[in-house]
């Protein structure tokens, strides 16, 4: 449905002729639906004006960042936040950075490294917005989710500008809980249906100490960038264990000892994907690593603040791994591969090679909770993948899952993928069924309640939270112009 000419003009007067388009030719670039228009606001004031116009004309809108994911109903106003790409502030003293939505993680991280700082890079990859809330490789030290969103600037569905936390009472961004209004419970951008309606226009992300180099010494050409040397006081290793229980013993021990910069429960398939430059190499490497591992395992990076600190961390790591019967994967001890995977995990946050390269699409079930519990669920979900692998519907990764510790293992995340071809509707349908069934099983067997699970059953079991959330959304968005639907990636 096209906008009426006068309505189009109203939007145009906000963002300028160059920054609005309703030509059908551009729509497939974004999504398979046709939108009423795509609008590129350049700042918060323009976002606010666009939102107000949407309310005036009862037009539904959705914002996007780099456009990697999201669900978009047809005929909406799509707000592409691409022009809002500034790093507003890096506050080294109070350890936060304020960014606009189209600053990607790679940009912010590179700036932070120069200052001896880092932040939580989300699993979606450093090619996605730095504002994204979620989890990633370095959660062990950089935590995840709302822990890292400090104050936020939010244009509500009605077009009011709300500044949360410390920003609500001063011009500082250091705290999400006050002294201004703490509205953490409704400011979420990670998982539907909890996606806050409206638009986040700025966020302060929490910064952490970075013991590594100000810039990695990269050599070679794409796609095979290597490190000319492993940075001082850093090491990456993959350890496999005789059993899940043993792996968990080591994981919890390492968390307690607080020696790992990163602890990522990669499976052999994901290691292979990350260190190889094409699908064929990937498959051969997967077969090789599969033979080399003795069982489940994880990948760790240690980073010392001094040679002594590094030596201590290394010693503790090796002792804990040894006690649990862990074995280092020899292939990854090759400094070239060690450097590649170190960069993949820190600078890229892996992602594309391990998700999209083989088939072009993937579906995932991500879950938070205690790792030992969620691993048990994931083993079953992995088994349930095997019939799909046998039928050739999904990529053969041996039924693998993965996961990692958050905040030195106080929390954990477990995730499982199915990778398939987007051109194969049978595969897509089979994967969606698998996803539904495994979410249901998770709930029925009381492992966790996924927001992708059977909502009609989960809601009542959890104090009808979904109804309360709907009421909150209704109050925030009386005109129903800002639907839920996907993360801000």
């Amino acid at each position: 449905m096209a906008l009426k000419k006068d309505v189009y003009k109203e939007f145009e007067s906000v963002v300028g002729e160059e920054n609005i388009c309703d030509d059908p030719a551009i729509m497939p670039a974004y999504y398979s639906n046709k939108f009423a228009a795509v609008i590129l606001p350049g700042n918060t004031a323009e976002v606010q004006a666009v939102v107000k116009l949407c309310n005036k004309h009862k037009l539904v809108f959705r914002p996007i960042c780099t456009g990697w994911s999201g669900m978009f109903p047809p005929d909406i106003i799509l707000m592409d936040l691409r022009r809002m790409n500034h790093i507003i502030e890096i506050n080294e003293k109070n350890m936060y950075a304020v960014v606009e939505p189209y600053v990607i993680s790679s940009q912010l991280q590179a700036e932070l490294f120069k200052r001896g700082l880092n932040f939580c890079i989300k699993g979606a990859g450093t090619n996605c917005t730095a504002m994204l809330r979620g989890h990633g490789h370095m959660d062990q030290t950089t935590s995840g989710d709302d822990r890292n969103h400090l104050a936020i600037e939010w244009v509500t569905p009605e077009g009011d500008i709300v500044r949360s936390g410390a920003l609500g009472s001063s011009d500082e961004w250091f705290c999400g809980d006050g002294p201004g209004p703490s509205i953490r419970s409704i400011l979420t951008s990670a998982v539907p249906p909890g996606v806050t309606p409206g638009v986040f226009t700025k966020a302060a992300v929490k910064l952490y100490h970075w013991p590594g180099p100000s810039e990695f010494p990269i050599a070679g050409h794409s796609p095979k960038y290597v490190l000319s040397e492993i940075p001082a006081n850093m090491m990456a290793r993959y350890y496999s264990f005789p059993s899940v229980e043993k792996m968990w013993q080591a994981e919890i021990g390492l968390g307690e000892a607080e020696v790992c910069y990163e602890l990522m429960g990669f499976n052999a398939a994901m290691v292979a994907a990350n260190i190889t430059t094409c699908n064929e190499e990937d498959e051969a490497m997967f077969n090789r690593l599969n033979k080399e591992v003795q069982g489940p395992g994880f990948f760790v990076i240690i980073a010392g603040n001094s040679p002594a600190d590094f030596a201590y961390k290394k010693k503790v790591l090796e002792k804990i791994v040894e006690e649990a019967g862990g074995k280092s994967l020899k292939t990854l001890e090759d400094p070239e591969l060690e450097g590649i995977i170190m960069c993949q995990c820190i600078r890229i946050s892996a992602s594309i090679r391990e998700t999209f390269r083989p088939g072009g699409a993937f579906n995932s079930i991500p879950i938070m909770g205690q790792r030992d519990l969620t691993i048990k669920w994931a083993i079953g979900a992995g088994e349930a993948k095997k019939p799909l692998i046998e039928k050739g519907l999904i990529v053969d990764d041996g039924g693998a899952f993965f996961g990692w510790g958050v905040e030195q293992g106080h929390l954990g995340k477990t995730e499982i993928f199915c990778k398939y071809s987007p051109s194969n509707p049978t595969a897509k349908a089979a994967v969606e069924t698998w996803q539904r069934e495994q979410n249901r099983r998770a709930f029925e067997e009381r492992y966790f309640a996924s927001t992708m699970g059977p909502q009609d059953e989960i809601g009542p079991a959890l104090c009808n939270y979904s109804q309360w959330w709907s009421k909150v959304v209704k109050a925030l968005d009386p005109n129903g112009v800002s639907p839920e639907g996907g993360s801000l990636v």
Partner: protein
Amino acid sequence: MGLEQYKGDMEMCCRCSACKFIPMQKVKGHQYAYVCPSISRYNFHAYSAGGRLNIGAAMLKDGMKYTDKLLDIVYNCQLCGACGVSCNYAMDMEVLEPINEFRIKCVEDKKTHPALDKIIANLKKQGSMIPGAKGKRGAWAAGLKIKDATKEKVDVLYHVGCLTSYDKNLQKLAKATAKILQKAGVNFGIAGDAEMCCGGRAYQMGYPKEFLNQAKKNMAMIKKAGVKTVVTSCADGYQAFKVLYDRFDLKGELKVLHISEYIDKLIRDGKLKPRRKVEMAATYHDPCRLGRLGEPWVHWEGKKIPGDRFVFDPPKPYRRGANGVYEPPRDVLKAIPGLKFTEMTRIKEYSWCCGAGGGVIESNPEFAKWTARERIEEAVSTGAEALVTACPWCEKIFNEAIKESGSSLKVYDIVELVEKAI
């Protein structure tokens, strides 16, 4: 086959946006992280490679739906290939090829750009890319005692290229090249008035027939002259002879070198000695078609293996930009005494385009200059006084942009500096 052959590639696009940026490990900060001029200038996702592929996939499925906006997207792309390098860091799929095919399809459907039509009409008539060019193609060589390769036996044919031959401001590059080759004692010649456009730029513009026509004429002339080695001083010419002629099975055993590679070899062989000091701080711009797109063509034929993965039998080799010409021009510059060499952030396979490619300098000079200005700013940020390139099209657009912006940066072709140094 056309666009159809890239259906699977286009469907592989996951809209990850990596193609908008230089490879993630190479990002050095907030600045100079973008790599695609088109999305950087026009902002709508449709102008990125990912957007283009998704549009291509949709139109392949539902039919071509031409609008003015679609054509604006199609023709505002330098076909620079930076998107492909960034995508192919992680993905196995063709990126630039379907973008180029989409443009070819537009031309086939007569949805052309008037400025490019004019260029092509002139190409057919005069055999050059420079409409309105006056005088003879080989006139610049008058009095320089250069052999006519169509009449005398030479070891090396210097293919001068359209812009360098006809543009009064750039003929100095041809003269410098000739002087260097003479000084090194190379038995070389030019085809003079018999030289024709290589056709490479026609291919980028979406006119493969016209390209092939030029390619065939050139190769016939080369065969007749018995030439075994061609040296070009234009990156477009280099890519045409080296990559495109090979792709279309026209190159045969012809050895193709860019002048920077040839000079590098002459220096290594001790035939050329840059002795005079050239005191300046300079940075080097990798022309797209000498760098990432100068990577040799890899002949391949195969079929997708049915099933879950996008893999082929035999395995498909992707040209990911690693094998372009990167070191020879740098080595030449480093061999010049007194020259202080600095690097920009976006270099080699992930270099930012000068703006002139893909017919953009003709179809949308403002966008071409905008793109050039971005590069000029990056060059200035290194502290360099001079921006050195290895293609006359880069030099032309950089100088035009500098003239408008008032920057004090100087632009040189690599041959100009070598000429000063010998």
